[in-house]
């Protein structure tokens, strides 16, 4: 194996904001996390390192896309939906963001908006 794997590798790492309650709310990311935990004993961790984790520069670019006010509110919709809406309204969002979103479309950290707010 390339690197020693630990049992905690199956828990995806989350950035936690200050003062967030441990038992959390309705986000779809939580469902993924619980699913991972439940299936821990039965099979391998679902996030096998076959797909490379997205690099921090990409996450930073996506975060800046979320927080730019020109493209409207970012909560409650996926980043791709927000990008397409901005495109239809003629606000010309940057193309590389869409390519990155489509490339990593199965990674929930990438497709949903930045979790810094906690909801």
């Amino acid at each position, binding site marked *: 194996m390339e690197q020693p794997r630990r049992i905690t590798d199956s828990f995806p790492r989350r950035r936690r904001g200050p003062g967030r309650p441990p038992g959390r709310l*309705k986000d779809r990311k939580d469902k993924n996390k619980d699913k991972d935990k439940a299936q821990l004993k039965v099979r391998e961790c679902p996030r096998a390192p076959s797909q490379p984790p997205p690099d921090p520069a990409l996450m930073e670019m996506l975060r800046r896309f979320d927080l730019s*006010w*020109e493209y*409207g*509110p970012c*909560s*409650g*919709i996926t980043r791709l*939906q927000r990008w*397409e*809406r901005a495109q*239809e*309204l*003629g*606000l010309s969002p940057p193309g590389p963001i869409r390519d990155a979103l489509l490339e990593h479309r199965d990674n929930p950290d990438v497709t949903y908006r930045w979790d810094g707010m906690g909801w």
Partner: protein
Amino acid sequence: MFSEQAAPTAQGLLAPPSGQPPTFPRVPVAGYSDLSQPFRLGERSFCRQYAHVYAVRLAGMRPLLERRARGRWGDDIALRRLSELQEGEKCCVVGTLFKAMQLQPSILQEISEEHNLVPQPPLPKYIQPCDELMLEDELQRIKLDGAIDVQRLVTGTIVAVYGREEEDGRFLVEDHCLADLPPPLPWSGPSSDRFVLLASGLGLGSMSGEALLSTQLLVDVVTGQLGAEGEQSCAAHITRVILAGNLLSQNTQSRDTINKAKYLTKKTQAASVEAVKMLDEILLQLCTSVPVDVMPGEFDPTNYTLPQQPLHRCMLPLASAYATLRLVTNPYQASLDGVRFLGTSGQNISDIFKYSSMDDYLEILEWTLLAGHISPTAPDTLGCYPFYKSDPFILTECPHVYFCGNAPRFQSKLLQGKEGQRVLLVMVPDFSATQTACLVNLRDLSCQPITFSSFGADTED
């Protein structure tokens, strides 16, 4: 207009029955297309906030308003965002209006127990002289003062204001403009007289039986079972019937059974069940003879938020066997014979009436057309689906007939626009109260009320 076309041979009722009574074929349906696709919701998700609706509304209407502003105040005016305002500079800002109203019903005030207040009873109008107007754009908001009628405008309107910022942070308005009439549609209406019957507020399920006679008279006129050959030949020119909401009466909405114990309400049936059965029978009679479009209204069994989805066809088993029955959304947009119809069941107009000083319903209807939006108060005071991609209530093209159901009385007006728009504004009256329906002539966009009054025990006639 309608009865002038009566066939001259109206002697059929005074002669013995003939072997072959004259028949009048109804004018055929030509060129119908349903354009209310933007108002149909597929998968509905309510996990979103309403900020998206306001954001797409502003982003969608901003280019149009900037064009209007340049046309009105000169090409060289400065268009600024609120964050770029400089004190004392004359400029133009495009944004959304917000009216801070003291009497506006607020759920937080209602449930606040520490004040021990009785919740405010519903008032006909919630305006007060101390209301304030704010202009909001994507990032900031500013208080508006000056030449702007605070009482008349409502929250959610997109407006362009021209003026300057004062020292204390208010914006002194010298002039303002709305989106104005949308661009006109080409006219390809019919060359002969074709009529569309608009009726709303049938109010079935109410306890009074007087309205039922009028409803039956309406159905009989449309299906040609009333009158002699003259009236029948006129009725043959009616190509369509549009029922604009409130098919059921408000009495069917009583929610007493919800608070009662279950053993007391076991055998009771909701009042709307009987009313829907009556509606089914009435629609059956109509559908055998003429295409009918049924729009839901405030008291009908469909969702509460705008856009209301069509009634489900399993509620109308007898009538939905006919292809002439079309269950459509509220608001409804369609092209009949080349004439574009757009209308609602009245919730948008009555909501603006509550929060604005405008008293005349026709004036409010005209104002929504000039503001370029069917219902600017949604989602603030009128329930609305949380759209995120686009606001389907923005008017992009000027309809030929713009109607609103459930008005207190019949009103109509032909509006001429600067760019060649011709719009017939129709306030369709509440049938259960006024027994009046409207006939719109598609050839020349004229409108005529038709009343089905019956003689009650207390009338003097």
